[in-house]
């Protein structure tokens, strides 16, 4: 008979044995994501909107996740999207891709395939020619993780 206390203790042991990961792995990943975003954005404010990130909400295989990013912009010389950056929250390295566009792109839309390590948030950030940043985030559930060898939670 497992008592409530025994069960909780078991849970604690299991948590400890989960992997040889640093205990504060989530904090480390969050810091890595923030640092990666900071490197791109600098001190500017990132506002939600104008960007549409399209990722399937439920992913069977994290090794190839189709994703597309579309940004509302007239794409003229005066007002266009300069760059689109894609980040994932739980990867060992959060950076996925940066694409640099210009008025000759005609439309701000890219499609690619990414590796996503674990259930979490995927973020796309668009850098406009006027220096503003816009973003969209989608929460995805991953059943088969990419980079399993890293022993993710």
């Amino acid at each position, binding site marked *: 008979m497992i008592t409530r206390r025994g069960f909780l203790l078991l849970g604690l042991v299991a948590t400890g044995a989960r992997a040889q990961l640093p205990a504060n792995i989530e904090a480390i990943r969050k810091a890595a994501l923030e640092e990666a975003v900071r490197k791109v954005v600098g001190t500017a404010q990132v506002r939600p909107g104008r960007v549409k990130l399209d990722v399937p909400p439920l992913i069977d295989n994290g*090794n*190839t*996740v189709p994703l597309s990013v579309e940004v509302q912009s007239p794409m003229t010389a005066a007002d266009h999207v300069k760059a689109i950056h894609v980040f*994932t929250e739980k*990867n*060992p*390295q*959060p*950076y*996925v*891709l*940066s*694409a*640099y*566009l*210009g008025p*000759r*792109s*005609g*439309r701000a*839309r*890219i*499609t*690619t*395939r*990414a*590796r*996503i390590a674990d259930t979490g948030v995927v973020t796309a950030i668009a850098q406009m020619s006027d220096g503003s940043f816009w973003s969209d985030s989608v929460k995805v559930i991953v059943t088969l993780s990419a*980079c399993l*060898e*890293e022993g993710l939670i």
Partner: protein
Amino acid sequence: MARVVVNVPAEAKRGEVIEIRTLAGHPMETGFRRTQLGELIPRDIIRSLVCTYNGVEVFRADFHPAMAANPLLTFTTVAAESGTLEFRWTGDNGFSATQTAAIKVL
């Protein structure tokens, strides 16, 4: 020589926005995986793709290890004049691949 594929429409109207699809055959080794003996497999990825339209750069992308193997990327450009589009991939360990596609603008 790596196998790369690009898909560009053969003809387009002037000013039309055309979609370009690119695919490069590459394992995109992340540098986080290990062999069965526990040795780390070194990173080997494509770092960038540059697209030039008659010598003018119209699109550029930086890839990171979180790109899936055989990186696929589609983007758009405005059909300005007849000519050639050149695509160049460069990566770790001196990886380099180029591909060209001709376009006729009516």
